[in-house]
């Protein structure tokens, strides 16, 4: 796959397909809080209604690749409808960025509730991105075993919560 890194395109296409998603993980922290290196884009998607079907459409439009095993690694557009199910996370490759699609994550028991608390930001090109709230970002960190938490982030997020 030839890569042409452009994380903004990923959000533009998700938005165009009306996918209900929330940006989580390092890129959320990067865009909203502090610069950190991160190796991919992490999104949590709503699994209700036809959202996963819309998400599959968006991933096809992005020319995403994925396979349940190496031998099945191919464009997702070549997979049968409904492939985006049956496991909690899918680590895909798109020409724009490595993309992790989560159907669930520890610390976020309800997409609807997290969505209600989420915040909207705009990228440099004005593309709207739905982001997990600071409170829920903190909940994700606290759901990790202590030795896996990013203490700098936890401290910073706790400060934000304390100071409003």
């Amino acid at each position, binding site marked *: 796959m030839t890569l042409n*890194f452009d994380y903004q395109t990923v959000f533009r296409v998700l938005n165009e397909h009306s996918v209900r998603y929330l940006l989580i993980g390092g890129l959320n922290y990067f865009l909203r809080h502090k610069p950190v*290196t991160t*190796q991919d884009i992490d999104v949590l998607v709503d699994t209700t209604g036809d959202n996963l079907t819309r998400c599959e459409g968006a991933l096809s439009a992005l020319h995403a690749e*994925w396979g349940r095993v190496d031998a099945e690694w191919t464009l997702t557009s070549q997979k049968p409808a409904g492939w985006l199910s049956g*496991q909690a*996370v*899918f680590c895909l*490759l798109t020409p724009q960025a490595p993309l992790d699609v989560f159907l669930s994550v520890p610390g976020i028991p309800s997409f609807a509730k997290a969505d209600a608390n989420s915040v909207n930001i705009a990228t*440099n090109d004005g593309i709207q991105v739905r982001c997990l709230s600071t409170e829920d970002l903190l909940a994700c960190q606290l759901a990790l075993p202590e030795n896996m938490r990013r203490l700098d982030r936890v401290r910073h997020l706790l400060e934000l919560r304390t100071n409003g």
Partner: protein
Amino acid sequence: MGDFEAFQKQVELEEAKRNRFLSDLQRRQWADELLQQMVHSEEYQRKCTPEARRAEEAILNRVVDEYFKGDSFDRG
């Protein structure tokens, strides 16, 4: 295996599988590109002094370099 351990194991297996289709060079390019987009973003330019930006960029470059030596990297 607990729920979290099962989840974490799946994340690791998925990442490892994807990385077999993504070269180290491509991973490096992604990290570099993200860094460049960050340091040139309007919000970041507004928040930081030029000195702070240069210092931050140096730190981030070092973090990326360390990752590609097989050391720490923010997997977040």
